[in-house]
């Protein structure tokens, strides 16, 4: 058998729980326990990967992955993969968990959710939904270079949504907070206040207008600007996409690609939802400056892509024991120096887009589309009418260059990122930013 030059294994054991309270009814209490492993082996230029649910015998797994790799290499030989060196790093402080969520009884959790729901059930609210989830994972990593790691992570979070209705007009408001945290998540965030906000948003939107679409000056709030940062800039900075010609940032390292006020950072060491102490290749995590003062500074790497670009790895992640891919962690536009009032005054006439209902990006062509939760028209430097069903679309590079002002109020928002069929926890964020002109969709 051809020589296997490298193998690694991630063995993960976890417990998770979800509680859903829907319209006053405790709809779901769901608990899951799982164990399994994902094993990779590299033979020249071919990767073999196996994943096994349940009790796993790593030795057999390594043998199976190695056989796959060797047989791939035999039938479709290709250039040798040179893995990047593992950077020598110390792991920064691990997040401390104050209240283990498993120490709180299910009854107490349910009671808290009921309490939260009361605040969302404002007058005029037709239905509400409150959910809570927690997960406790133990990850064991080992590779053929003799590295071994074991660490535990605890994540928890909640979301609350409210729907208001007026005839056939239905509008929703939603707030959520997730973190690398124990049950203290409910102390760090005021769930009652968030529930009220969700209800208010739904109610206000009932009477909001749909604006005329067109190219307009735009202000993005930290949440929507964060979605743009993650979807349009972050994904295009993932070296695997760059290598497969699927990034508008391909071949642009060292070039000015954005307004010089823009610095974009990915930082897995921050104790937020996207935190990890080691990546899925056992590499201690570290912050990466993707764009520095408008210049494309670095891509994010796995060991394989780091080997190609002479970059530094640390962004290889996987959902559970799936095959690791290059992923983001906590990604944000760094703070600038403008206050929100200055940004507003500078824009004069345009639209202020707030929150996100998701979006999508074509990283290869650098085209994106995001839907805002709501917006306000800006007239004469002042916030005026509330609008709904507004979306933002455009070309990533064009928008990056059209950024006029960058605020100082960076906020991170937790969410889940899907890529290659895998979902991982991330945060994204930004301060308020303004864009000279962007396409806003409406009626």
């Amino acid at each position, binding site marked *: 058998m051809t020589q296997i030059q490298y193998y690694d294994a991630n063995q993960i054991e976890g417990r998770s729980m979800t509680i859903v309270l*829907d*319209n006053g*009814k*405790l709809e*779901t*209490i*769901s*608990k*899951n*326990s*799982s164990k399994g492993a994902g094993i990779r082996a590299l033979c020249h*230029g*071919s*990767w*073999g*990967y*196996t*994943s096994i*649910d*349940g009790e796993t015998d790593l030795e057999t797994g390594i043998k*199976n992955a190695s056989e*796959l790799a060797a*047989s*791939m290499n035999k*039938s*479709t030989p*290709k250039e040798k993969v040179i893995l990047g060196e593992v950077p020598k790093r110390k792991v920064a402080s691990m997040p401390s968990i104050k209240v283990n969520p498993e120490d709180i009884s*299910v009854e107490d959790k*349910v009671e808290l959710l009921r309490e939260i729901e009361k605040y969302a059930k404002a007058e005029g609210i037709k*239905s509400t939904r409150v959910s809570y989830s927690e997960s406790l994972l133990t990850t064991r990593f080992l590779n053929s270079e003799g590295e071994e790691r074991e660490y535990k992570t605890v994540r928890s979070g909640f979301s609350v949504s409210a*729907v208001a209705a007026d005839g056939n*007009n*239905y509008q*929703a408001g939603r707030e959520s907070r997730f973190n690398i945290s124990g049950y203290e998540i409910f102390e760090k965030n005021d769930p009652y206040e968030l529930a009220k906000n969700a209800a208010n948003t739904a109610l206000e939107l009932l009477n909001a207008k749909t604006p005329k*679409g*067109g*190219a307009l000056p735009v202000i993005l709030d930290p949440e929507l600007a964060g979605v743009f940062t993650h979807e349009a800039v972050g994904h295009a900075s993932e070296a695997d996409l760059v*290598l*497969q*010609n*699927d990034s508008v940032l391909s071949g642009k390292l060292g070039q000015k690609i954005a307004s010089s006020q823009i610095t974009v950072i990915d930082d897995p060491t921050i104790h937020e939802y996207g935190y990890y102490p080691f990546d899925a290749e056992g590499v201690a995590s570290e912050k990466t400056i993707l764009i520095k003062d408008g210049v494309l500074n670095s891509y994010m790497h796995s060991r394989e892509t780091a080997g190609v670009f002479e970059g530094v790895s640390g962004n290889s992640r996987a959902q559970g024991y799936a*095959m690791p891919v290059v992923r983001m962690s906590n990604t944000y536009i760094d703070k600038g120096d403008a206050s929100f009032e200055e940004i507003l005054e500078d824009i004069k006439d345009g639209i202020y887009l707030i929150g996100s*209902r*998701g*979006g*999508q990006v074509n990283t*290869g*062509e650098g*085209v*994106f*589309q*995001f*839907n805002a939760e709501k917006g306000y028209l800006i007239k004469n430097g002042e916030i005026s009418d509330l609008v709904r*069903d507004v*979306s933002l*679309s455009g*070309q990533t590079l064009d928008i990056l260059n059209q950024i006029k002002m960058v605020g100082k109020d960076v906020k991170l928002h937790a969410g889940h990122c899907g890529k290659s069929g895998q979902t991982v926890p991330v945060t994204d964020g930004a301060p308020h930013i303004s864009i000279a002109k962007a*396409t806003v*969709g409406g*009626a």
Partner: protein
Amino acid sequence: MAKMNMSANAEKMFPENNISVDEIRSGIEKALSLSEKLGASEAEIVFSIGESTSIQFKKDIIETAKKSTGAGYGIRAVVNGAVGFAGTNLMSDLENTLRTAVDSAKVMEADPLFKSFPEKDSYKEVAGLFDDKIVEMSLDECIECATDMISGVKSVENMIPTSGGFSRSVSYFMIANTNGLFAQRKGTAVSGFADVTTESGEVSTAYDYGVSRKKELDFSAIGKNAAELAKKSLKGTTIGAEKMPVIFHPFSFADILENTLAPSVDADNIQKERSGLVGRLGDEIANDELSITDDGTLAGGISSGSFDDEGTPTQKTSVIENGILKSYLYDSYTAGKDNVKSTGNGYRYSYSSAPGVDLSNFIIHFPQSDVIAETKRGIYINTVIGAHTANEISGDFSVEGRNAFLIENGEISKPIKSVMISGNIFDMLQKIDGAGKDVRSVGGIVTPSIRISEMSVIGE
């Protein structure tokens, strides 16, 4: 007899996992009888096992071969109508997991609206869901399918894959409950996906994919179609803001339906009043030539099976008939609540999640014609991005059209660089006025190209 064959097969399907269907079944039966002692009035256990092989390529290089197996139990236990759920993939943990599900149910308040889990029933076999040739596929054969896609892409000048892959999967599912229901089924599928771009010069991208229950899939055509579409999309023109006819390719139409109409006919959303179709049964909600059926019995259908994930026999449900809203889609719980029969639409993401209402095969019927040739001026949209951001209650959406083309005088004239389309699904259903002859199965949604008489379109 058929069942005997199936179980004998299940062992052969997963030779490396050493599963014994008889042992699993007796373990499940033992656990079910224990559930009563633990205080559950009813219990249900599913076991599923799946095995898959996938081959991934990046650019024109085959990079990774993956083999995965997943197996586990999902348990629902009922106490006073409240349903607790627990899942595990540790085979030795079945009884513990049952206890967890019962304990959760005990914490929940009584639910008088819960009727019961499905009763024992008889099932009709659905043809074309299992292909021995997929079970037997060797790694080299899998690699060949991937290579065929790559050469399909490269047969078009200046085109190269960005990424893509082939995958084959074999699955087996067993369900039993304390009402004496026991059922098992198996399935196979192959699929291919290719994302392509230009090798040099102006960037233009496109994708295509295919999925089949049988080993017959033209992988080379998947690559070639994507490449040709990307090529045709080069040198795009710009358009202004206009109202005009829009023709949606099955990919884009299915994407929009899945995110708007699908949640609207889900009985759970109806009962919670989170749907624009609450109280609309019997109303004319679409053009009277439009009919939509949800059919879990479709031969060879991607979402077909003789029963759903709760053991309810699948059926053909008329959702919209000649423009009239005829039925919502139900699982057993929502059906019990409305005093109707489940439509066999109780599905799970995996054994580790409780079932909920989902589409099976959602089939769009409209008189077919040469719809592009009959359009004087309009646009043709192959795919959209952002459909999942639609407001699923109001049905409003705003999406970016990709690989879009201008139609002039009955012909596709030139590509359009960037176009946003906003609309509302309920408004669209009324305005459907044409369908192509190009029916495709997009996941479980089976549809031709669909023309909407007028929509709001905004160019750059």
